[in-house]
């Protein structure tokens, strides 16, 4: 059977005279998955460090007014959520690519269909808008399209998923400023571990205690990615 290497795979083997016989296509796909993780984790880390620099009031930098800090931190949170969604979209495709049998079954496609990441993406995302940021809500879909042994989403712990849901309450309020999203966020603030009694604008909440909440919530995306990787250990 003749395989065509994707541009990413081609780059990976650039300069080599031959593909070593002990490197299988699964290894290559796993390497692509790990690359997706690495890129995501690096960009999230950059996001956190930038936020920390803003919040820290470093002596050699001009002091930023609190309102500006809050605006920037809110923007960085929205960016982190966007990065998370983009990363998950890629991850689903790559995990299915490792073994597409569940996907073919779910979409009633012939078992011998020659799939590649591009085709998988087309199958999953072209018919209608899908968003997977809520891991629990998306889990039944993941189960149907990703074979169990490759379903890295199962590795995300309950604690991590709760934090993702909380950050999305902040994100939704920032994206809509609707009464509904505000009530949802206030409800979340009132619960453990925050136990707040009154509503706080996300910027004020995120820069509290030298940005502890921002760091914890955004790092949670990175930690979720790290947990997911453990499936390939």
């Amino acid at each position: 059977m003749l395989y065509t290497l994707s541009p990413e795979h081609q780059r990976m083997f650039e300069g080599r005279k031959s593909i070593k016989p002990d490197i299988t296509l699964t290894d290559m796909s796993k390497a692509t998955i790990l690359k997706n993780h690495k890129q995501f984790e690096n960009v999230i880390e950059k996001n956190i460090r930038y936020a920390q620099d803003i919040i820290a009031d470093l002596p050699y930098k001009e002091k930023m007014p609190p309102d500006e800090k809050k605006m920037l931190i809110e923007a960085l949170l929205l960016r982190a959520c966007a990065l998370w969604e983009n990363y998950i979209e890629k991850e689903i495709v790559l995990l299915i690519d490792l073994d597409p049998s569940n996907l073919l079954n779910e979409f009633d496609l012939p078992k011998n269909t020659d799939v590649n990441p591009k085709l998988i993406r087309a199958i999953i995302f072209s018919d209608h808008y899908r968003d997977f940021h809520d891991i629990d809500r998306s889990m039944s879909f993941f189960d149907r399209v990703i074979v169990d042994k490759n379903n890295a989403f199962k590795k995300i712990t309950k604690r991590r998923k709760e934090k993702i849901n909380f950050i999305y309450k902040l994100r939704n309020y920032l994206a809509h400023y609707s009464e509904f999203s505000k009530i949802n966020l206030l409800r979340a603030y009132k619960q453990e571990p925050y136990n707040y009694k009154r509503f706080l604008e996300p910027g004020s909440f995120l820069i509290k205690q030298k940005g502890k909440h921002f760091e914890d919530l955004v790092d949670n995306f990175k930690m979720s990615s790290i947990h997911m990787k453990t499936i390939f250990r």
Partner: protein
Amino acid sequence: MDNLISELKQISNSKKLTFPEKFYFSTDRKTIMGEITFKEILFLDYRDTEAGSNPREYNGLKKTNKVILQSLLSHAEMFKFLHSGIIISLTDVEISDTKQVIKYSDCCLTNGNQTRFIVLIITLLKLFSSNQNLSSINSKNYNSFVKNTFGDSPKILAILHRVSFSKISQVVAFLKDNTKYFNKFRDMELNSFLNLKVRIQVNPINFIISDLEEKLDEYSVGTMIAEANNDTQNVRTDDIFGNKYKMDLETYLFNIFNKINKDKVKIEYRFGEVSDGADKVHILTLLRPIIATGILTKEKKIFEYTNQRDPIYKTFEKLLRNKEKADKTIKVISQLIPSLYTIRKTYVAPELDLQKKNFQREYIGKATAGELSETIVAKQISSIKDEKEIEKIIKPHINYNIEHIFPVLIYRVRKLFNKSGTPEKIDFIVSEDKLPDFFRALIEAIYKKYIETKLGGLRSSLTTFARSKEFYEAGGETYIALKNAYHLKESDFIEKNKYLIE
């Protein structure tokens, strides 16, 4: 209470000691012994007076002080037999004919300062609780109590200034936790308490030095007595050095620092002496990085000395004893001190704070991903069930001591200090806009080595590692890369101004 407060104010300003009974006054006029009431000793001076300077501040409710407090509360009448007594030095002593009053100009409480402060705290708390509930005491209402009660007495305020509210609240917490002592405190009558007696020895310095062969001034004799009185006790080397060399340090080494930081940063010569909430820096913080530059010691001694206070103080003691010979070096050090302090405050401390968080995330991530299998925490991590436990295991290994990392950084960059065109200034040859990135990269490399060594398992203690040549090599490659990238030309300025202390 008002009468008692007035009496205390009057005693504190009187510059005389009144004894309830005749005291012993030796025929050579150099020894005075007797008994004195608590109210007479409450506000005696103890530091930086013409009669000398006691090297110790009140050090809080530590073991011995707790015993003194317990004994004052439960065996008040027996106290003078349980306590070895206090010692004071006085200048310009005049003895009354009745041998019951001593007039003086300056006083230094050389022994019994801890006891005095405990008596003082009990007195303050009794006065406070006469109008307000002791359990409601907080820094705000305590400060307003002090202001309202003693605001018109600068002498008393100067002494009270030496006891921070945290020290007061230690005693309150002790009373709250110990019903027996709380009841004793509650039932105690303040006037009777202040009339309790303690044994006292007085050193009349003017009589002592009157026929000395060696010409010594009153301050030197008083301080000598104060230091000798404290020598057998657990006094920090820091406090002894700071006390003894304060004048020299101010004149020769901290002169430029004080000029630059006037009113902004206070130098602490003895631990705890600056307690007014002002920005402060301890002498050791300023002196330690000088050793790391290598301007005073042989290369191999840098690693060994930088993290030990005794050799640091000894080195500076010798330097100050050779002020004339080492004049050039002393000038350079006085210029280096503010420069190094700025580097520490502006770049190192905030950067370490940020990098600690970065490293915590990095290593918690590594532990979760199973990438710490070669470290001493591998076993612990593999056996845990709750991921929160990982954080608990990792965090202590990421903690740092700035006194370990800062000297290594200074050692690394010491050849980048150079003579400046501006008088009393030293140049650091990296341009200001590059400094944040420059220090960030170096600190990261040094801090990483620190963490990796801790996680790899220390052969001995962390302190031993912090004093090792191996640790002082950290950041070497990063330094070379930065030096080349920024086209930095090293200077021999430090080398040329070296004064080796053997």
